[in-house]
């Protein structure tokens, strides 16, 4: 397939996914905005007003990056796992598999769709956050790098879930029983410095902690862990998931007979 043909194929996948995101906006864009508005109202305004500032920032300012990151994670994962599994279930995935598109391009198409949705949702959530608090930006590059890398990571995770899922139950188990607990325990609402041992040390085993802290570093300039360790761990997990996805496509596992 020529480079021009690959660009057209990739654009076609992107166009289709973006149209889908806006066509079903009440399922793709609205729910995370409502959920995070509630978080801002309840944890930020009602409860947060009773909490002492953390490292010079109000509680609302402290939790804002984590809440945005939570929407990045859930949107990227949910978008790719549901889009891929629905295509597999309806067999419309065969439209892609019989085409000359190389596997890496199909993967890139799904992953970029997940990144686009999480970007759109996070922009909306930031707009909502502006109604509740003043937003500071310490380093825009770190915000973008952490956001995009995390969205890629969870888009790949959602894609793998879609590949291996045998039914619709299969794409809800991991978000409900793995992703949600890890996200809530990933330092969105608190600094791990406040945790007693062994919970503090145990928290360091949660990869989401590093993504939330890298993102917070971008906004507030503070973090519980080293920025480079955060990017290193996120990058490493992303690379592992990418290799697993490429392997699944090349072997046809969960895709071809």
């Amino acid at each position: 397939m020529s480079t021009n043909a690959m660009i057209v194929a990739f654009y076609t996948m992107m166009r289709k996914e973006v149209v889908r995101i806006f066509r079903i906006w009440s399922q793709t864009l609205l729910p995370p905005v409502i959920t995070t508005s509630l978080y801002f109202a309840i944890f930020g305004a009602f409860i947060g007003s009773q909490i002492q500032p953390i490292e010079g920032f109000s509680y609302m300012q402290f939790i804002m990056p984590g809440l945005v990151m939570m929407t990045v994670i859930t949107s990227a994962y949910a978008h790719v796992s549901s889009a891929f599994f629905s295509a597999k279930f309806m067999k419309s995935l065969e439209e892609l598999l019989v085409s000359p598109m190389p596997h890496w391009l199909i993967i890139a198409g799904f992953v970029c769709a997940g990144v686009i949705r999480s970007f759109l949702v996070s922009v909306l959530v930031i707009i909502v956050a502006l109604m509740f608090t003043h937003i500071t930006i310490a380093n825009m590059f770190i915000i973008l790098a952490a956001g995009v890398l995390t969205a890629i990571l969870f888009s790949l995770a959602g894609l793998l879930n879609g590949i291996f899922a045998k039914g619709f139950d299969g794409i809800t188990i991991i978000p409900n029983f793995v992703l949600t607990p890890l996200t809530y325990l990933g330092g969105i609402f608190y600094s791990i410095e406040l945790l007693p041992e062994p919970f503090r040390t145990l928290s360091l085993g949660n990869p989401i902690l590093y993504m939330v802290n890298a993102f917070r570093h971008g906004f507030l300039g503070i973090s519980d862990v080293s920025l480079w360790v955060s990017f290193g761990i996120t990058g490493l997990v992303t690379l592992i998931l990418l290799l697993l996805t490429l392997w699944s496509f090349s072997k046809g596992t969960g895709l071809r007979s």
Partner: protein
Amino acid sequence: MQSPAIELTNLRKTYRKSGKGAGETEALKGATLSIPQGEFFALLGPNGAGKTTMIGILTGLVVKTSGEVKVNGVSIDEDLSLAKTYIGVVPQEFNFSLFENVQDIVVDQAGYYGIPRDEAIKRAEVLLKELGIWDKRKDKSMALSGGMKRRLMIARALIHKPAILLLDEPTAGVDVELRRGMWKFLRELNEAGTTIVLTTHYLEEAELLSRHVAIISKGNIVANEPMKELLARHGDKKLEDIFLEMTSDDPTP
């Protein structure tokens, strides 16, 4: 010398099932077949004979166990991507998104083959008009009748102007009038140079349309010759009788 449109050499496929009911099923047991370019070729066989597996291997949806497959002289082991550009496929089961409209399904498929959107829209118009579903172009695919869904899949398969069209039971569940319309369309397509490989359970359809026939039974090719010669060799027998004779475990009626 022109390469055959499709060339299969000692093609084998074994499905392995793990867990409960684990075991192996040999769907293709060393099939060898050569289909010249421009042929209208019928691939016949009972359910489970290996026809759909063969089509799946040609389109990259099924991974072969062993053997060689060439499409227009291109080995799928060496350049599957190029081999796929020569093929259009109409599968047995509907395999498009139920939530997309008819035109988008066809135009998007063109995009996956690298055809720019403007060009794809023009091609889609021609095909949808020829197949009589242009009026339905803005309808969701789920709203189409069974016959229209079949025609939509034909339009989608032809959008990149493939040299070879694989049809896996394209007229299943289609009424007589519509079926005749599809036969006419396929004949004209073949006369224009497209190689057509047809699998069907309607043997009169195969007899009427195809110049060459192969019969596959339990993963083995048991007949492979021009339709006229097969019929002539069996005297005044109908294709249905010949088919049953070749594929039945118990040849006695």
